[in-house]
Structure formats: structure tokens, C-alpha cells
């Protein structure tokens, strides 16, 4: 709703002095505001140019092609100290995306469970969920990250005394979580990818068919279980059919070091744990709010129809609650993505960390900060655009 326009009554326009004419005033105010903005922007640009000239700093994106000369702890694509700064920043961006996507998935699952648990009729469970939410969301995220990382890392042993959940194969120590490296032949790898794609496509097809059948006959098909079976089973069958072509290389542990194997860095684990548990407490609140917004008559009607507790939640409550949950959920996803920038405090090489290393070692502060802001702003705008589209799709269609 916009504010109602202050329109002059008909005929009043002639008697009105030009100074009090709303149209005239509006034009004057807007021109003044635009001129003021332009002047401020010009002053900032001029001052910055003068300051930079005085400090002999130049602006430009040429530096992105220069060599970095520093190493990064976690790289999803090949990288060396001879790589370009642009590549380093891109690796940082990929790490941000990785932690954001994993965090969103885990936080949604935990948030959903805790949100439902808060409304449980089981007194112990609902109190436990309440305590979780009230404790976690009232402690700063940075402090939680420090607790996970610095306090958690202090408890873990040196590589020599690794905790070994699977002796000889999986190691937990200060270097992170080390497990065997998996090497597959190219044929097996492609077969796995194809099997996975086929399984996902089949699941979607079954879902469409099941929905149609349910609309026509009312019979429910267990899409979730069948889909899970397909997505896990088909790649497994393909893998076994091609002769289980998998070579595991166990990591070797010396006194202070780990060689071979695949390592999940402690920074990533701490970031994921911190972001997941913190965001989950907010998501739980959104879920609880959404469920409470479903009219109680709906639940009573579902019970009267003989649906079980789980069926009521899945078929009646959640589809309606989702409409209320989605807008705050979007906000939490965006917050999680933005909060992943706290990685800089514990040394997880995300976009902000890499950028900070770049400008503290090699300069170009202004360009790096501008890049950060463009990337985060872009991500935020794209996410909210996508979620708005989803929200419109989910909204009640009034007939």
C-alpha cells in the first residue's frame, strides 16, 4: 500500500499559490535530493582520487592476473602459489558456496526437527528443544565459531594419537578428519554419474505419476522411500556391475603429520557446525511459527479422518505451514550465506578470508572490497529473486 496521494480538490488548483502546489513541491524536493546525492558522490570520488594520488595508489582490475605467492588450506580446484589472484578469489568464492550450501542443508534439517520438537506433546522433548533454541540464538555466532574451533581443536589429539573410528582407515586429529582417498576408473566414475542422473529423473517421473494417481484414485504411493532406494541403489548396482572398481588408499600417519588420504579441514568442520547450529535455532522458530499458524481445526479434521500423527504433519500441516515458513526461511538462508563471511576469524579460506590476505599482502583494498560487495549483493539478490518466485508458486491460489 502506498500513502494516499494528497490530491487537491477539483477547482482548487487555480486558487493555490505555486509555492504550495504539491506537484511543484514534489519536483523541487526530488531534484534537490538527486542534486545532493550527486554532490556527495562527486565529493567522495574527488576526495578518494586526491587521497589515492597522494599515496601513489592506482585503481584497476589488472592485479587479478598477477601471481599470489601465498598458499590456501582448502582448494576445490587446482591451485598453487603461482596461480593468479583472480583464481585465488574464485577459490574463496567456491569455498563460500560450499559452506553455505552444506550449512543450508544441515540447518534446514535440524531446524525442522527442533521446530517440530518444540511443539511435541512430550514434555521432555519440547523443553529440550526450547532450551536449545533459547541458548543458541542468544549467543553471538562468532563466539560459537571460536568455541567450535579454538576450544574444540584444543581437545583433539596430535596426529600421532589420532582417534580412529575405523582403525587404520579413518583418523580424527588436529589436522582434521582424514579418510581414505578413493580412486575409481573413468568408466566407473561416468557410470556412477549416469546412474545418479537416471535415478533422479526416475524419481521425479514417479513423483509426477504418483501425484496424478493420487488425484484420480486417492491412493498414496511411497515416493520418498522408492526415490531413496533408486538414488542409493542404482549407482550401487552400476558400481557392482562394473566389477567394483575402487581403490582405497589409506592415509599414513607419522608423529606430526598426515600424508595421503582425503582430509576435511577442521576450519570447515567448525564453520559448518557453528553456522548450522546457529541458523537452525532461527529456522526452528520460523517452523514453529508456521505450524502454529495452521488453524487447529485442520489438525482436528485430519484426526477425525483417521490420519496418524505423522500423516497429519506431512499431508495436512506442513503443506499449509510452508507458506508461512518460506519468507523467514529465505531470510535465514541469506543470513547464513552472509554469516559465512565470519570464516575470516578462524581462517577458513572463504571469499572474505582470501580477499583479506590479498589486500594485506599485496594491496588493492578498494578493488577487493568492491568485489566482495558485488558478489554478496548479487548472491543475495539472486537468492531472494528465486525464493520470491518459489513463494509465489506456493502461495494460496484464490478462486
Amino acid at each position, binding site marked *: 500500500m502506498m500513502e494516499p496521494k494528497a490530491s487537491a480538490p477539483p477547482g482548487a488548483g487555480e486558487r493555490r499559490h505555486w509555492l504550495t502546489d504539491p506537484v511543484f513541491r514534489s519536483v523541487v524536493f526530488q531534484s534537490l535530493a538527486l542534486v545532493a546525492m550527486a554532490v556527495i558522490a562527486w565529493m567522495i570520488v574527488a*576526495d578518494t582520487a*586526491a587521497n589515492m594520488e597522494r599515496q601513489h595508489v592506482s585503481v584497476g582490475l589488472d592485479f587479478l592476473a598477477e601471481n599470489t605467492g601465498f598458499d590456501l588450506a582448502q582448494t576445490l580446484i587446482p591451485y598453487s602459489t603461482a596461480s593468479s589472484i583472480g583464481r585465488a578469489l574464485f577459490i574463496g568464492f567456491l569455498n563460500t558456496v560450499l559452506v553455505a550450501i552444506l550449512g543450508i542443508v544441515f540447518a534446514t534439517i535440524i531446524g525442522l526437527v527442533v521446530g517440530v520438537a518444540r511443539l511435541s506433546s512430550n514434555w521432555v522433548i519440547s523443553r529440550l528443544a526450547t532450551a536449545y533454541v533459547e541458548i543458541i540464538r542468544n549467543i553471538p555466532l562468532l563466539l560459537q565459531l571460536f568455541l567450535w574451533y579454538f576450544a574444540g581443536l584444543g581437545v583433539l589429539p596430535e596426529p600421532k594419537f589420532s582417534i580412529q573410528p575405523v582403525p587404520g582407515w579413518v583418523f580424527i586429529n588436529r589436522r582434521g578428519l582424514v579418510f581414505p582417498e578413493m580412486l575409481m576408473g573413468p568408466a566407473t566414475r561416468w557410470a556412477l554419474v549416469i546412474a545418479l542422473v537416471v535415478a533422479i529423473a526416475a524419481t521425479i517421473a514417479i513423483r509426477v505419476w504418483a501425484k496424478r494417481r493420487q488425484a484420480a484414485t486417492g491412493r498414496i504411493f511411497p515416493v520418498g522411500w522408492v526415490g531413496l532406494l533408486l538414488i542409493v541403489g542404482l549407482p550401487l548396482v552400476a558400481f557392482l556391475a562394473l566389477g567394483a572398481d575402487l581403490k582405497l588408499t589409506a592415509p599414513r600417519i607419522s608423529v606430526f603429520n598426515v600424508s595421503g588420504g582425503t582430509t576435511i579441514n577442521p576450519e570447515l568442520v567448525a564453520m559448518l557446525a557453528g553456522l548450522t547450529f546457529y541458523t537452525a535455532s532461527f529456522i526452528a522458530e520460523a517452523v514453529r511459527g508456521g505450524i502454529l499458524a495452521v488453524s487447529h481445526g485442520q489438525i482436528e479434521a485430519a484426526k477425525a479422518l483417521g490420519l496418524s500423527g505423522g500423516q497429519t504433519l506431512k499431508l495436512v500441516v506442513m503443506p499449509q505451514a510452508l507458506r508461512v515458513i518460506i519468507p523467514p526461511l529465505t531470510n535465514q538462508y541469506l543470513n547464513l550465506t552472509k554469516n559465512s563471511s565470519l570464516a575470516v576469524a578462524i581462517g577458513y579460506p572463504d571469499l572474505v578470508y582470501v580477499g583479506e590476505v590479498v589486500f594485506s599482502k599485496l594491496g588493492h583494498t*578498494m578493488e577487493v572490497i568492491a568485489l566482495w560487495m558485488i558478489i554478496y549483493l548479487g548472491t543475495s539478490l539472486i537468492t531472494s529473486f528465486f525464493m520470491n518466485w518459489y513463494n509465489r508458486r506456493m502461495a494460496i491460489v484464490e478462486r
Partner: protein
Amino acid sequence: MQTPTLAASPAAAGAFVRQQLAETLPPPASTAGAIGWLRKNLFGSLSDAILTLLGITIIVYTVWSILDFTVIRAVATGINGDACRKPGAGACWPYVTSFWRLFVYGYYPPAEQWRANVVFALFIGLLIPLAIPSAPLKLLNVLLFLFGLPIAAGIILPGGWFGLVPVETQLWGGFLVTLIIAVTGIVASFPLGLLLALGRRSNMPAIRFLSVVYIEFWRGVPLITVLFLASNMLPLFLPVGWNVNQLVRALVGVTLFTAAYIAEIIRGGLQAIPRGQYEGAQALGLGYWRMMVLIIMPQAIKIVIPSLVSSFISLFKDTTLVQIVSIYDLLGTIQQSRNSPIWSAPTTSTTGYLVAALIFWTCCFSMSRYSQFIERRLNTGHRR
């Protein structure tokens, strides 16, 4: 309850007729009292019972771990970290007692710390009557809190006037800085946020466009990048020769950032005001500003008080980020001192973090409770 007697009819005389209703039996023991409550809430079904036992296990384990770490295995006294370095030692409390001044005041000179205490006292003295809805002189109180307190703190803390020794802002730290940033952030960003909210709902396209761009920009970027921007770029944006200290840079960054969030909250309040209120004000012949100040804003702001409190809570938590641009707030001072050679021990960090967590949690939890209390108070008309 009065027991109704059955009318004794002559026909029934002689035969056995029960004269009184049977006494009401108490409900079965399995549905009432403690056992009934247990059956209903904890052991309704098999899965319920399993969940209950699981929950109790989690609670017992967590409470025991915390108690074990903070009390049973804890080191209570000591002049250095030797006792805390022994294997199996729990929380290292002497670390906290020897550094508490750092946690509260940072490097503010000990002889001058009374000045920080005066500011704390003023803050609490103004906050308590502000928080009690029935306390008198509300307007004066609000004005003192919004203008008097920042001005007083701005005179007392840096010093240089009235014979107070100047104290550089680099020396400020600890909880003092946490409070300064949180309060300044919300107080200074409020007027800007108000104007932006009005701008976003204005009829003038240029004003609306500028407000939307401002709000969406600051809401789209993380606070850390804003702090880096403020601390590295602000001096470049200002005329040559102007110098701004690190704390002020962070305050500017936090203020510009928070204003965008406050603008969205106030816009929510403005949208909740029925159109009739605007039309009524216009029918009375009020102009735009008088309509806003006298009619719309008082109602809109009242609605959004709970949201403003939650935005203050998140700002309060976000103040911890300033340590990344070398300003040492409560968490920053812990981060600085936890690895000092004298105290460094496996549990020192955890002890420090637990103390910080307890302080932040107490502040944030009481604020969120207060906001719920206000919400209930404002909501009386609609409660069913």
C-alpha cells in the same frame, strides 16, 4: 457440591430406594496426578517413552559435563596457569579473575576506570526507568537516554575537558566498547532509518528509488565487509588531511549498516497503519510532516518496539565482529589474553569463551524476554 436428595414418594415407602446419589469417584490413578501427567506427557506410547529416555539422557549428560568442567574439575585459585596445565584440569577460573578488568574496560587506565563506571551507572540508571512502563517522565527519560547519555559518554570517556586526563580510543576495550558500539549503533541509526522508511513509502519516485537502493545495498552485504570498508576506505573518502580514529570508523560503518535494517522494521510498522489514519489526518488539514509526526509515527513505532528490540539484540551480538578490524570488545579481549604465556593452557580458551557466552546470553535473553513482555502488553486488545 450440594447432593440432591431424591424426592421420597409414598409409593416407594418401605421398599429400598437409594436416597442419595453415589459419591463421585476420583479419576483413575493412571490419568490424574503425577502418574497421569507422566503417562500423558512422557510415556504415552512406546516411541514417546524412547524419546523421553533419550531426552533425559541428553539433559543429564550435558548438565553433568558442564558441572564437571566448571565446578568439579575446575581450578579455583592460582597465580599462573600451572594448575590449569595439569592433565584433566577443568575450567581455569583464576585466568578470569586476573583478567576481568581487561574484559570490562580493555586497556583503559586503571586510575581512570571510574569514568567508565560512571557511564555504566548512567546507562543502567536511565535504562531501568525506561524499561518500566509505569515509570513517570517517560519523554524526558527517552530524550536523556537518546541524547544526554551519548553526549555525557562523549565528554567523560575521551576526557580532555574539565581536568579529565585524555584517554585515547585505542585503549578502550572490553564490555565498555561492546556497549558503546551497540548503543551508538542503534541511537545514531534510528533517525536515518526513520527517514529511509518514509522515503521508501514516499510518492516521489526519485526519493523512493534512492531509499530502496540504500536499504537493499546495506542489507545485501555482510557486516564484516562493511567494517573492512569503514576501517580501510573511510579515510580515503574524506578530504585530504582528515583523520578519523578506528573506533569512529567502526561506529560509522555499524550505523550506516543498522539504519537499513531499522528502516525495514519501521516500514513494516507504517504498512500496518490503516489507510483511514492517513486520510483522517489529511481531512484535518495536516501537512505531510505534521501528519507523520503527530498521527502516523507514534502508532507505527509503538507496533514495532518488539522488532526494534530484536534488531538491537542482533546488533549487540554483531558487535563481536569489530575485533576483526582491531577493536577489542569483550570477546576480542578474551581472544587477546587467552594465549598469554602465563595463562595459556588447554582449557583457558574454553573458560574465557564460557564467560563471554554467559554474559552475552544473559543480556540477549533478558532483552528478548522483555520484548515478549512488551508485545503481550501492547497486544491486550487482540488477546483471546
